């Protein structure tokens, strides 16, 4: 088929394009991913038993995770449409990471040196860096599905952004179970958990996001 014939075929009988409503579709996708993550946490981990007294701690940790997701959201949405400059959207992510590091340092410094390590590590292995990626997976899968219907052209970076965004949602859900409430723990290991999601996303992005 000659290129001109192909063009004729593509153009013939086109209809007015419907408004794509990307924002709405992204929000619904993220909400669905979050709902699945919450259901998974409640089913397999359970709400932490002291939720009555820890409500505020849980809410704060969920809000911190939501802020992480929100800092990546503009970048992730931009990357799904070709040829759009990223501008401040990268800076927003870096700002969030910078503020988290700063918060960790301040929290640790305001604490007697004997308690620092325990407060930072949460008294054992920080399991959230394993569990956050697991609970992020449903949102990531849904976001990949959405992204493929758009047109991401920078697949590694798109994968990282989708990973981090889903990681934020996974952390929101995980906060319901997570028994450690120290500030330095959350600002370190939640961010590391989300960064691991971003790294996984960057690695699998160039395969999964191809279109």
């Amino acid at each position: 088929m000659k290129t001109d014939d192909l063009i004729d075929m593509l153009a013939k009988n086109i209809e007015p394009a419907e408004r794509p409503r990307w924002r709405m579709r992204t929000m619904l996708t993220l909400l669905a991913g979050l709902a699945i993550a919450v259901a998974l946490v409640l089913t397999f981990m359970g709400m932490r038993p002291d939720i009555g007294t820890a409500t505020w701690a849980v809410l704060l940790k969920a809000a911190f995770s939501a802020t992480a997701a929100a800092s990546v959201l503009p970048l992730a949405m931009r990357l799904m449409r070709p040829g759009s400059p990223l501008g401040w959207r990268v800076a927003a992510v870096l700002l969030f990471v910078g503020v988290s590091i700063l918060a960790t340092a301040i929290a640790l410094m305001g604490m007697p040196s004997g308690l620092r390590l325990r407060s930072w590590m949460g008294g054992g292995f920080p399991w959230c860096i394993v569990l956050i990626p697991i609970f992020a997976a449903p949102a990531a899968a849904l976001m990949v599905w959405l992204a493929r219907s758009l047109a991401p052209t920078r697949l590694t970076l798109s994968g990282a952004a989708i990973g981090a965004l889903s990681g934020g949602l996974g952390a929101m859900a995980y906060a319901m179970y997570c028994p450690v409430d120290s500030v330095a723990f959350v600002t370190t290991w939640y961010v590391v958990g989300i960064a691991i999601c971003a790294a996984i996303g960057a690695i699998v992005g160039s395969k999964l996001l191809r279109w």
Partner: protein
Amino acid sequence: MADEAALRALLLKGLAGEEAAHRKFLTEAAALLRPYFRNRLRGAREDAEDLVQETLVALHTRRDTYDPNLPLTAWMYAIARYRLIDLLRRKKRRGDHSAIDDLEIGDADPAFEAGDAKRDVARLLAKLPEKQRRAIELVKLQEHSVEEASRLTGYGVSDIKVSIHRGMKTLMKLMAEESAA
């Protein structure tokens, strides 16, 4: 050759459903894409025309991802570049390095007229799932409206539209697979 503003106006009219404007947009885009790919795939003229065709289908099926607040050519070349990189990756995976060895950015090829593509899109259309193939044949290759196609096949009007759109996306995938082979 159309400039940014003219090209953008054509695409937006096409998005509003104007067939003639959309045809003109694709024709102008092809004229810009041809030297773009030829310069990057020197010595592989037919590969370049294959990529022009593949990118036209990509521009067409993803035209709703264009953000009217941003430059149109940036959008168009981002997609073109992605199709090129995707082709090179596929070839590499198959152990064919010829296209990558040929890849150089040199002087513009003076001849910009449409060459022949290696592959035949008509043959690829035959590989589409039955419903998508029927919808495309009736509406995009023969002279039937969407409503007529709906009557002829018994599928609903929106079903026909969705089948055409999906069929075009599938077509682009088949084109990409074949050009890497």
